[in-house]
């Protein structure tokens, strides 16, 4: 009995401490930097799971420490065996099994299924009529971004490097393809790449021979210069140039976006 009481107290203290720790972590930003509604969905999911799991983690950790200290064999103890020999405890096992099933079902419903719905909400046709479309082409080892709605065939900065500009608070539809625009006749040349913008909280593999779509909803004005997580980064190993497959991203106001479009068109016509 004493052990049960002591352990329970330690467990509660442990849970509180852990909840506090996770809360602090979430305040700080578990994802460090989020700039799209999808990233915020992910961050909420982490926060939810950790909050629910804190007492579970605390249970196991406190149990390990408690057992280790409290039930250790003492020096000079002549009888090696424990007095308590039991094979089972229906209540403990029953609660354990039910709680673990319950928690998993809970996590499946929320956040897995529900947040998934939320994250892919921007894909719903009724919501994305006004989408900005960006065609993304990955080749070894370069990104190309074009804006068919604006006639920009390859967005570049002043040095000729690929760059991605997006207006804030818009749905963006990325159209993802992997091929070499300079060797379109060679079907062997494409490999798998991964399209990821860390601050946007999701990624997708780009498979040669397939066209895929990825939707995000930008949520704040920011750029690579503000935080280096606002960048495009290839995440699927694609050969020696893989680490160099990155490009800066700028999320700007609608007005700045129009200015940028004009500049691009002018650059293009020069």
């Amino acid at each position, binding site marked *: 009995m004493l052990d049960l009481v002591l352990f329970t107290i330690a467990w509660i203290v442990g849970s509180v401490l852990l909840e506090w720790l996770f809360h602090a972590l979430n305040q700080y930003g*578990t*994802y*460090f930097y989020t700039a799209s509604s*999808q990233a915020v*969905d*992910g961050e909420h*999911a*982490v926060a939810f*799971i950790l909050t629910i*799991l804190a007492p579970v*983690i605390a249970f*196991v950790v406190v149990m*390990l420490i408690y*057992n*280790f200290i409290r*039930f*250790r*064999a003492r020096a000079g103890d002549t009888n*090696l*065996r*424990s007095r*308590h020999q*039991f*094979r089972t405890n229906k209540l403990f*096992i029953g609660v354990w099994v039910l709680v*673990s*099933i319950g928690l*998993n079902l809970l*996590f*499946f419903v929320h*956040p*897995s*299924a529900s*947040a*998934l719905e939320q*994250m892919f909400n921007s*894909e719903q046709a009724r919501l994305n009529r006004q989408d900005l479309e960006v065609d993304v082409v990955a080749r070894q080892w370069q990104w190309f971004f074009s804006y068919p709605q604006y006639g920009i065939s390859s967005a570049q900065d002043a040095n000729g490097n690929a760059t991605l500009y997006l207006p804030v608070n818009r749905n963006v539809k990325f159209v993802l393809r992997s091929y070499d625009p300079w060797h379109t006749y060679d*079907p*062997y040349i*494409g*490999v*798998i790449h991964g399209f*990821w913008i*860390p601050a946007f909280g*999701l*990624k*997708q*593999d780009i*498979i*040669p*021979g397939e066209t895929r779509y990825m939707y995000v909803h930008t949520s704040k004005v920011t750029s690579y210069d503000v935080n*280096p*997580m606002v*960048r495009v980064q290839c*995440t699927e*190993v694609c*050969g*020696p140039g*893989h*680490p160099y497959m990155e490009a800066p991203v700028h999320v700007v106001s609608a007005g700045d976006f129009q200015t940028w479009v004009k500049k691009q068109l002018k650059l293009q016509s020069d």
Partner: protein
Amino acid sequence: MSSTFAGTSESFLRKGRRMLPPVVRGLFWAAIGFFVVNTLVSQALDRTPFAPYVTKVSVTFGWAAATCGWLLGLGAWELVVRPYFGKPVEWEVPNDWRRYFMMSLDHKVVGLQYMVSSVSGFFIAGLAAMLMRLELMNSSLWTFPTPNAYLSTVGIHGTIMMFSFGTVMLVSGFGNYLIPLMIGSNSSAFPRVSAISQWLLPAGIITVALSPILGTWTTGWRGYAPLAEQDPNGIVFYYLGVFAMTLSSLLVSINLTATILFKRAKGLTWNRIPMYAWGILAASLLNIIWIPEIEMTFILALVSNVASLPLFAQIGTPLTYMEVFWLFGHPEVYIVVVPAFALWQEFLPVMGQKTLFGRAWGVLGLVFVMMFSGLVWAHHMFTNMRDDQMLPFSFFTEMISIPTGFAFLTSIGTVWKSKLRLTTPTLLVFMSMFNFLIGGVTGVMLADPVINLQAHDTFFVVGHFHYTIIGAMVFTFMAAAYYWLPKFSGRMYSEFWGKVGAIWVFVAFNCAFGQFLLIGLRGMNRWVPVYPPYLRNMNFEISLFAFLLGLGFLFNLVHIVWMWRYGKPAKANPWNAKTLEWQSTAMPGETNFNPPPEVLTGFYDYSDEQPVWKPESPVEVS
């Protein structure tokens, strides 16, 4: 002195005839095999412009011939080929150190051979990890001359770790040595199979480690096509090396499964089977189901590569390779960790001298983890799926944490109110449980598609799987090494240095890999020798802890090897365990049980002093 396992009668030993030492003969035959077949293919059968001596095609066939030569030279000639043609088995194993350098029919010798090969693999791949961490201390290229060199190192690290250590040490190493002992048998079911399979392992390790000779390869351990088809020839040795190593595991699994099914001592009924044997049975079944699948895949990929077929290229189906790789790849991680779970449940009752708690749940856990593991592969591919396609895989992945939890349930229930001896193995099992808890929690997070889409292919995932593999499997392996050291060597390690070693690796491990998780969330992606400078400080720190970890492993190795030779002599059953392996004092080369044992009760009941076994009484022939 000839060994009891040679299976030859004196009259067959032709005293006068001398043979090269088997290892030398194996190397010699391998060299001959390679030169003959390679020359034949590259110069005659498949001559290419300018006739280079080594081509992709010739090296593939040359390698196969070399491997056959190696195995035949080490004893397969006498053990398999000649008996097949009706000749008697003539294979004399001397009863001294030389038995470790040839094929041996004693499962204890094979077990030790496997352990040595496997540990060598661990340190070779560990060295690769150290080089990678050295490179990552800086955000630009400085240790390696090219990104190719770095990526080849990543691939060598992952491949050798997984296929020569992760899936091998606890199954082929400890399994071969201990399973026959634990079930009261004098040998494994097919001793010749394990004798041969052990020698495939070093062949595989060397093949992968030397792959850069043929050229760098950039795919990492998964060998994703179509990138693999572009790679220079090094990838050929990846396929071949993995083939040798997985074949080795497959053969062992067949042998151990048959051993557990058919070689159990009298009275060792199904509900008395030791926990470790359950673990090995589950892992072996996974090997038997999934290794043929991945070997077929690799053969297809190899053919696709050497014969330039477009199987997995754009005009083929690039996704197919991914699917079939992970179809095997996920069960693979349970092959790694299931034996470790079983070992927790093996050691804790002994160390606490208390009856195993909820044994049936423990077994159920192992078996259900095994069965679920085939249903979750696509959680490695959420970035290739949309929306609700992910849900079934997310569901099963989350559900797998339930049977996994049973290993914790039984372990915790067992130590509650026990008299736990705080030995090094106990400490390591507790550390292992803590680490796997982290691995499990991060796993539940990754099973959530929304989180997965962010964390996939970042260092968060790298942190997660190192927590499960190093955290659970390697720590448990170390516990097993200390626990059974008195069994293997008759000598005891030093409790003090053992604990120093355990705490050392625990601290270094958590400081290094805990930060892997964080740096992954901060935007560090995988397979990059070069990364944005804002991640440099954290990477620098991680590397320092990683070096500390590497030294910690080395420290434990030195301690164990030292104590193997110079430790204090140990009692026959130093832990007061009830399982059968401690009831035999046989050393390699000696018979385990004579007469065979008869099991009277289960091995995990510490409530009474009744003997668990008695020598089997001679059978009355009627």
